């Protein structure tokens, strides 16, 4: 009954060889960590976590710049993190001597948040910079770390009142 099975054996050998090639290739091609957590390369998680950071975080800034922290505590800008205005400074935190932050242009930095816009929350202090300061740099009157003007000459006091009313509209 099984007299002429030679051709079947040959076929089986071919199939087995192909299967072996497939398995060898699969081991070679599929990354070792594939399927460690699910249908993906498990090592990709560690790779994503290993990148260096650009923003140091305000805790790192505050470890050295304690004077600024004290200043900020006296005003509303206490909630504003350092790098919101000063930009990404992890490199400066790593090497404070050789990497120094650039001086900020208050005309740009202050206006980013405080330029009036009808979509901003009503309680947020807003000014139309062109009317408010007439081109004078913000830090002429305001100390950016503690922006409220307290003891000021009469001229700047006017500006302060203006800010207040505009902030409440």
């Amino acid at each position, binding site marked *: 009954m099984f007299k002429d099975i030679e051709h079947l054996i040959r076929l089986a050998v071919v199939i087995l060889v192909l299967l072996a090639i497939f398995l060898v290739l699969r081991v070679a091609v599929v990354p070792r960590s594939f399927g460690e*957590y699910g*249908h*993906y390369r498990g090592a990709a*998680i560690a790779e*994503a*976590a290993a990148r260096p950071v650009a923003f140091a975080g305000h805790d790192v800034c505050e470890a050295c710049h304690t004077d600024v922290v004290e200043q900020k505590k006296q005003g509303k800008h206490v909630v504003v993190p350092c790098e*919101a205005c000063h930009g990404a400074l992890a490199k400066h*935190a790593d090497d404070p001597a050789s990497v120094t932050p650039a001086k900020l242009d208050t005309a740009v930095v202050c206006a980013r948040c405080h330029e*009036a816009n009808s*979509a901003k929350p009503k309680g947020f202090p807003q000014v139309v910079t062109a009317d408010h300061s007439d081109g004078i740099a913000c830090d002429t009157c305001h100390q950016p770390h503690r922006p409220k003007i307290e003891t000021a000459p009469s001229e700047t006091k006017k500006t302060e009142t203006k800010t207040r009313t505009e902030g409440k509209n």
Partner: protein
Amino acid sequence: MEITRRRLLVLLPAAAVAWKYVLAGTPEASPNYKLTEHWWSMLIDIPKCIGCGSCVRACAEENDVPDSFYRTWIERYHVADWRIERPEVESPDGGKQGFPPNEIGGKNFFVPKLCNHCVDSPCTQVCPVGATFVTPDGVVLVDKTYCLGCRYCIQACPYGCRFINPKTKTAEKCSLCYHRITKGLTTACCEVCPTGARQLADLKNPKDPIHEFLRTHNVQILKPHMATGAKVFYNGMDGSVR
């Protein structure tokens, strides 16, 4: 592993070294981080957003996002009178340079957007090669060495959060600053937000203020009818937001 006295003595200096890296702020690895102990999400407090664009700029800098592509962006909504089904939405340059002044009536507000890091994310389900996935700590990531650039995920995302990076030609999206949160830092966007409108939250951490916030506020997610399990929570969101 059983902690014997001998092993503890070996582990203590290792932990001290690791803590030094945490304090340094820019560690290369995160030896103390356990995947199973976190479940990341984000809280966005719309009434606090001033549309300054700090988050968009910080994201681009932190993650090297090419110009005119956005991992996070801000939309300005204008809703005239009662027409909440027809809001006018604009996002010039993703809100990167803020928004031009507009003195118009009606309801106006900003909505920051980013990847929702969905639990049942449509994008990971369509990926044919397993290049995008939900990590055990609840972050949707892209393995750019494995991505073919077939764009299925971009079509699948109902929030429009994905794009093809023109340099690498692979899919890219918000990684919830995975390289930062695993080192104990917050995301770049949350770090620079001047009003605290964006806050990173760990749903598995019982001490995280998110739990109290979610209990006491009316919080929504985007497109709940899509059943994506979005984990970016919006407080004070108007019905017109899409």
